[in-house]
């Protein structure tokens, strides 16, 4: 048996479950209470769990992320929601210098079991201050785990192991996925350690994550019609990267295209390419290619925004470029 629900509902269900089952869990962030969440992820939570556990905060990312760290140090299991990844830059000091560092600085005496959720990505005409994909920056930081749920199953399942993790976990939810519908099987199981092959193929490995996954799958469908069998790998966990799955897919297909909505230079895609060089160089039959966002602030105008982002057609073209 399975049931149909969308990404937003899956995430809401996951938070509801955590709040209902563990009194240490609480939700904090801008507009999570009265307004029900900017993206309606916490609709009805204030009435059900009360203002102690569903806490609206001032517009101060530095302040409320810091408060979350303090609560986690004090034994709570906070879920801190940052409205978009662009705003999270205000809280980077707390995340990099505090949350990620305390276990190290205290010689293992303290850990910070904090979950920070934020929206990432473009595609909804929200322009240059609400649309970027900076998860690659977070994947650079030792001391935290970085997750990118891109399926209904992961939206439903990744929060619980993230809350159970003794260290800070940052979850990036791509805005383009919120209305995506899918079947959730009854026997779903989710980990926060591995990448998953979402489509089996043999000619090229398309390695991606988050909002680019549906585009990669669409590209694979188009390529199949043209006789190219593409394997699609969903990274899921951006830190630590599941190098074994990446290398195994390259060893199987001998060609790889990395799709990453981040900007090309210094991107997560670049890191994946480096891992391939380190671990699967002798398996490559063509240079590794990547499809990233154009190196511009994400434009407002729809056609320009579309042109700036990875698209299924660009992925198809990149793959075809690997076959003479």
């Amino acid at each position, binding site marked *: 048996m399975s049931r149909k629900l969308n990404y937003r509902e899956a995430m809401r269900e996951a938070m509801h479950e955590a709040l209902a089952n563990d009194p240490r869990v609480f939700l904090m962030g801008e507009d999570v209470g009265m307004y029900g969440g900017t993206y309606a992820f916490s609709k009805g939570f204030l009435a059900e769990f009360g203002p102690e556990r569903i806490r609206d905060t001032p517009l101060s990312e530095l302040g409320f992320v810091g408060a979350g760290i303090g609560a986690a140090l004090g034994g709570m299991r906070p879920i801190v929601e940052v409205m978009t990844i662009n705003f999270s830059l205000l809280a980077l000091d707390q995340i990099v210098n505090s949350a990620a560092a305390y276990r190290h600085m205290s010689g293992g005496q303290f850990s910070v079991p904090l979950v920070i959720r934020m929206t990432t990505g473009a595609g909804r005409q929200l322009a240059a201050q609400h649309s970027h994909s900076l998860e690659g920056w977070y994947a650079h930081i030792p001391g935290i785990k970085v997750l990118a749920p891109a399926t209904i199953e992961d939206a439903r399942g990744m929060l619980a192991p993230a809350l159970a993790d003794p260290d800070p976990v940052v979850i990036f939810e791509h805005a383009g996925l919120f209305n995506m519908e899918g079947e959730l099987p009854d026997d779903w199981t989710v980990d926060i350690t591995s990448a998953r092959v979402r489509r089996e193929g043999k000619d090229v490995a398309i390695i991606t994550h988050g909002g680019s996954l549906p585009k990669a799958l669409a590209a694979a469908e188009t390529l199949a019609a043209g006789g190219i069998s593409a394997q699609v790998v969903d990274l899921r966990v951006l830190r630590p990267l599941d190098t074994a799955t990446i290398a195994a897919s390259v060893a199987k297909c001998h060609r790889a295209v990395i799709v990453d909505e981040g900007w090309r230079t210094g991107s997560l895609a670049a890191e994946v390419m480096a891992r391939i060089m380190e671990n699967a160089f002798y398996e490559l*039959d063509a*240079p590794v*290619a990547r499809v990233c966002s154009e190196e511009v602030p994400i434009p407002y105008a729809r056609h320009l925004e579309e042109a700036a982002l990875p698209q299924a057609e660009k992925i198809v073209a990149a793959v075809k470029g690997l076959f003479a």
Partner: protein
Amino acid sequence: MIEFKLPSLGSDMDEGTLLEWKVGVGDTVKKGQVVAIVDTTKAAVDVESWQEGVVHELVAEIGQKMPVGAVMALLLEAGETAPAKVGAGGTAKPAPAAAPRVAAAAPAAAAVPATPPAAAPVVAPAAPGRRMISPAARKHAEEKGIDLDGITGTGPHGAVTLEDIENAAAARPAPAVEKAAIKPAEPQASRAADMRKTIAAAMSRSKREIPHYYVSEDIPLAKALAWLQAANAQRPMAERLLPAALLLKAVAMALKRYPELNGYWRDGGFVPVAAINPGVAISLRQGGLIAPALLNADGKPLTLLMQELTDLVKRTRAGSLRSSEMNEATITVTNLGDQGSQAVFGVITPPQVALVGFGRVAERPWAENGGLKVLPVVTASLSADHRVSDGHRGALFLLELNELLQHPEELDK
């Protein structure tokens, strides 16, 4: 009848203008094949067909602007025969039928880029003397024991890919013979085609990468042929020596003093080889040639060398060479023999660095000591890699060869 319609080439595309037909009436269209170039507001786009069929009619005219979904062409499905009179395609066909269909390759469209300007990665050029070979292809070639020098790359930028190695493995002489036993005609033809491809690749690479220089020398063979005649008079028919064996032996002996002509150019430098293994160019009856090695030719008496040469020619033509003979030639010797022209200036076989050529042995007027006589003469030539040796040394090598052939008895050791 399949209607090939103008697809949407972008979510904001409403119409497109036909720039060029890539197919003509009667052409077979495969799935994924580019059939037309259409200008959209963004770019000129290659339009592929996702159906297979034979082009029956090109409905759209060059320069015609059409809405998305308009019928551009009619294709016949497999097995379908053309209707007697065409009445279809009317919906999106305002132009009269008078327009010439041959306009398909109109020069006006020639300047249009075939693909949208995707972010093309900058590809580092291969270092001098180093070919583009994918790491996987290199690994696979090693596992299969395939010499990469003879492989033509078909990957991006001419890189050698896994597929090229697999094709080469499938086309190797030994398995090809086995196949021939099962299917007599076809593999023979494909083998000849593969060989042509291999020769094309090796020779193109040679002329592209190796700065050849050429020197030649006319060598009188009166003494050598007289000695051969005397030697053969004492031998049974089957053991008689041919001039070719004598010439090969002389080349091998001369190379001992000119090691810069015997070896390989690898990874930007010369690698001399101690063993002297001249590759003997042998033409095949079905076309093409192979130059398998006569191993350690310098140390073998003429009788043995002749036996090995005969055996090598026989096995080459039967397609049963050993891998050492295929891979270990250190120089190539091409001998045009009786049916050849006067002289030959050959193309070096990479990664070797030299080739010695012999033309036809023929009587010629020969001036010597103020007098003129008629002698059998052969023109010996040397094609050599200027990165490794210079013309002066090349000329000295040919003089040494000449000198050795004036003392044929010394060669039978």
